[in-house]
């Protein structure tokens, strides 16, 4: 486990030195512009706009990072052959994968936390005060992070056995379909075919339901989120991450490096 931690820390260090965190500059500029302009454009709903814009940006930027860096985690090391010397050390392949996953997740956590801070700064500028309901924004950001964890695990899984481009497409594909799980579930009723109905229901429960983690509307409208949901979502994300990582380990442990 220690060895996975070593890999994780190095993965984080690589992201930092690759200037991945510079995306925060872009986000900061976006929030500043929004904070300054929102008073003129959307009077009366300033907080709402800042929160929905900020959380949407956190989600999209996080997704881009999770997908693009995620598929590169294993592929880059295999392609550049840096993996050879590493696997010659007393480290299991699954420890390596876990470390890569944890490292990118750490990067995303730092990134999301920094962006949440930026969002609060913009809120403070616009509203000149904090309210207890602002905590909901934090929860929404946490949900986004949970969602990103699943995405990273999926990207890692796909990158173990396909090319980077295909891995990106598959991961993005699961993300998009994962948002419409409810619709898929109800899809079977429309077709009228019992077999299709069963299939639709099965698929809808197999796919990760990303709508679970969408609390942007709730945060924007300051609607409270029940504590039980937070616990359930955390577990849900953990389960899906575990499934993806175990599958990735199984595949990667048998893979011949080139």
């Amino acid at each position, binding site marked *: 486990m220690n060895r996975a931690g*070593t890999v994780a820390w190095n993965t984080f260090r690589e992201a930092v030195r690759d200037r991945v965190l510079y995306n925060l500059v872009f986000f900061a500029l976006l929030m500043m512009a929004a904070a300054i302009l929102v008073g003129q454009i959307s009077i009366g709903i300033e907080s709402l706009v800042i929160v929905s814009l900020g959380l949407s940006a956190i989600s999209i930027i996080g997704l881009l990072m999770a997908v693009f860096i995620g598929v590169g985690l294993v592929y880059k090391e295999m392609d550049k052959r840096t993996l050879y*010397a590493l696997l010659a050390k007393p480290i299991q392949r699954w420890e390596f994968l876990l470390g890569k996953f944890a490292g990118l997740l750490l990067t995303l956590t730092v990134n999301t936390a920094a962006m949440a801070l930026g969002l609060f700064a913009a809120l403070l500028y616009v509203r000149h005060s904090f309210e207890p309901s602002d905590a909901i924004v934090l929860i929404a950001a946490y949900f986004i992070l949970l969602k990103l964890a699943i995405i990273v695990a999926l990207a890692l899984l796909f990158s173990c056995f396909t090319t980077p481009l295909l891995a990106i497409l598959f991961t993005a594909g699961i993300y998009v379909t994962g948002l419409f799980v409810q619709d898929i579930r109800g899809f079977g009723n429309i077709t009228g075919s019992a077999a299709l109905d069963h299939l639709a229901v099965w698929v809808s429960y197999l796919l990760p339901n990303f709508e679970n983690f969408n609390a942007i509307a709730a945060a924007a409208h300051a609607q409270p989120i029940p504590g039980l949901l937070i616990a359930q979502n955390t577990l849900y994300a953990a389960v899906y991450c575990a499934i993806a990582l175990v599958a990735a380990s199984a595949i990667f442990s048998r893979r011949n490096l080139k």
Partner: protein
Amino acid sequence: MKPQPFHSDAHAPSHFIDADDILHKNVPMQDAAIEIEGLTKDYPVGFLLAKKRRSLDDLTMQVLPAEVFGFLGPNGAGKSTTIKLLMGLIFPTAGTARILGRPISDVRMHKDIGYLPEQPYFYDYLTAAELLDYFARFHDLTAADRRERIDRMLKKVGLDGARKIQLRKYSKGMLQRVGIAQAILHDPQVVILDEPMSGLDPIGRREVRDIILELKCNGRTVMFSTHILSDAEMICDRVGVIVGGKLRGVGRLDELVGVKVQGMEVLFELSRELPAIANPLLQKASRTGNRFRLEVPEEELYSVMEKLRGAGARILSVTQLKPTLEDYFLHLIAADQAQASAVEVSGK
């Protein structure tokens, strides 16, 4: 691709290389550091990956403790494949192998092994010191221990001055040195090096040879692959020669190549035409400008030299003809080619 001979005028009369009974001098030793048995690797090739290309065929070989073992062969013979199989980077189609008595599937035994990959590439955003520290952390060393070893290694491979420079700025030779450093940092019992001399200048190669000999002095086992025969000749105790995926010969250098003197080589210079009496001699000699090279059996040496003296030739050198590793090597390749074309014809 048929390998080209290394020198245009070398001819290795096959009568003095007797490879056949040497091939099976694979005496299984109880405490071999590395034991390979029947190791085979097939790669799927072709459309739909239906066909198989056998890159390693039934390799059986040992590396003894505290010896330097040279693993030789032309490019594409299967040297790297064998080493990658040993290190668990690829998985065998058939056969087994053990290092220090433990199966290659057991990753834990990597703590006693050092490995240098072929044409190594490391994380280019790290410095040499950071890379060594990163790798060292997998070996359960204390922080102070790590620091001390890293300092020592960097000095040993001559990179102490460049320790704070990011690896992206390193030359090929410098990367090779870092590679060696990370391979021996944790003082492993067995060191496996894949083409350790590649990319190094003659000074670098000498330094690597010295490191390998030092490891041997400390009782470590070293196995390295190379296609530079002179390096192998200089430091190996035993060698194994692999051609076309098959092991062609293995054993002690002197056993494989033989020490029997096969004759004498006379180099002489003639500035003018010899009288007819010496002509038969000249016809047997090979000529470059005014210089001649003549091979004579040992017992005829002095009579030939008399004749040359009489003809006014100037003797440049007289050397014993001993078979070299290169000769042995080329002989094996030629044999493999003959076999390969026979196989092609038979359509297998």
